[in-house]
């Protein structure tokens, strides 16, 4: 079966971001960018399905600026077969992205679509579920285990109270949680090979998708900072402070 993986270019998870002085957003100038960690797990899962002989082809898609080609090449180096970039420079809402992915689903007809559960920049946790709704597919969100039995996909999900397993009819959507797998590192030969793999570029207009949003960002501020308190010298002093100063025990 064909597997579609959606990925996002985001600020590297190690970077401590700064808000722009005019409060219009985050300062992204000269900031290291990377593949969203959850998306990396999604690519790894698809590649493993291919290695197990379950997936016949792994197609990776992203919406973003020309530079998002870097992240698509990373996915190709990890083992995806070909890539599609839907080029768009401005930030889009999760719904607009889901509509673009839906258009790609219609074109590619995958049996399984794997996405990260959330992007570490916008922290929305929406796109996979929205794509599932638009496509009429079942969804297995926050997956920590995925197994295929015939045309049923069993997905074990990380939920607030533990783990839950659901059975989904294919085609289906899976969104990845942290413990689904540990992504591999791309080897140098695979990085070289990835440069020759096909990468198609489309625009939202090519796909006939209206990307207008009903949400406007009015401003972006730095959060209230928490300053370091004091160091206590002993457990006895800690207990005294918690009882008499903070009054929390």
């Amino acid at each position, binding site marked *: 079966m064909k597997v579609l993986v959606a990925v996002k270019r985001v600020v590297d998870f190690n970077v401590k971001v700064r808000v722009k002085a005019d409060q219009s957003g985050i300062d992204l100038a000269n900031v290291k960018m990377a593949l969203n960690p959850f998306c990396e797990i999604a690519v790894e899962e698809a590649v493993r399905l291919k290695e197990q002989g379950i997936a016949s082809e792994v197609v990776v898609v992203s919406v973003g600026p020309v530079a998002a080609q870097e992240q698509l090449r990373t996915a190709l180096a990890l083992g995806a077969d070909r890539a599609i970039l839907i080029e768009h420079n401005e930030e889009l809402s999760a719904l607009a992205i889901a509509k673009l992915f839906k258009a790609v689903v219609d074109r590619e007809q995958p049996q399984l679509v794997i996405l990260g559960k959330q992007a570490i920049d916008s922290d929305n946790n929406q796109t996979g579920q929205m794509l599932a709704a638009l496509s009429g597919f079942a969804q297995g969100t926050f997956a920590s285990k995925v197994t295929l039995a015939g045309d049923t996909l069993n997905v074990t999900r990380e939920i*607030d109270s533990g783990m839950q397993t659901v059975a989904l009819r294919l085609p289906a959507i899976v969104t990845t949680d942290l413990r689904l797998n540990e992504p591999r590192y791309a080897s140098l030969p695979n990085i070289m090979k990835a440069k020759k793999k096909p990468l198609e570029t489309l625009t939202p207009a090519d796909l006939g998708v209206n990307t207008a949003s009903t949400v406007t960002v009015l401003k972006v501020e730095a959060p209230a900072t928490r300053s370091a308190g004091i160091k*206590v010298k002993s457990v006895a002093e800690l207990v005294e402070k918690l009882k008499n100063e903070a009054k929390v025990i």
Partner: protein
Amino acid sequence: MTILVIADYATDSQGNKVLASATLNTVAAASRIGGDIHVLVAGAFVGAVAEAAAAIEGVSKVLVADNPAYAHQLPENVAPLVTGLVIEQLAIYSHVLACATSNGKNILPRVAAALDVDQISEIITVESADTFKRPIYAGNAIATVQSSAAVKVISVRATGFDPVAAVGGSAIIEALATAHDAGISSFVSEELAKSDRPELTAAKIVVSGGRGMQNGDNFKYLYALADKLGAGVGASRAAVDAGFVPNDMQVGQTGKIVAPQLYIAVGISGAIQHLAGMKDSKIIVAINKDEEAPIFQVADYGLVADLFEAVPELEQAL
């Protein structure tokens, strides 16, 4: 203006369905928006949850969809129920709110997409009926966003809103006859964490362990301390990834968001992803032998010490 709140509930250790406390915080956010508040309870055998919802302060009506199709809150079936309610009563519902719990996060974006509106995730304040604040970049920035959608679909981060009273209300309960069964998904099994300790997101005190705990067995020191304090027990991603404790204990950007009166971080270095899940706690205590650990930069009280000596000593001192 009427707000529809999707109730969340969980199954307790006796197998009873109980209203999730996050529902009270979500109703609190709804009251900040203003207007009539309706609560939807969808599930199978959820009569007790509906009664609990009807007792919530400020709720005027509880809609109950009690049908096997809604068991385990399967999103493929619950989302069309919500969408149907909103479309049928478009003149009524101005907002649809859900808790940012694993159920709310699973269901709500399906509702938003079906209604063709954007969703606003994890609001922490209500500025007005159409303007909200929400954290982005693991809480390293706060965005103020405004929605022009006819129906505003919003998930609520519980720590942003003090819960309304669970009792005192007397909403009318209305049964819904509709049953949406998409027939594309089914529940197989569940492995629920068994714990007599308070649920992490509702606990007044949380004790969390990190990589410094070295193994799962050593969490017994934290359990002993937690039991003395009546606290919930959490963990950093490092401790969960290392297999010390199960995933439902993870506190952080992608785990649970907590804001207790007292948070005690033990053997946790304090990566920004962990801080995102606990930095709104009232008082933070850090116990770590590495005095350079970033956790000390947010701790009200830091103790540089070997946790295997300090934690038992702390437990004895209480």
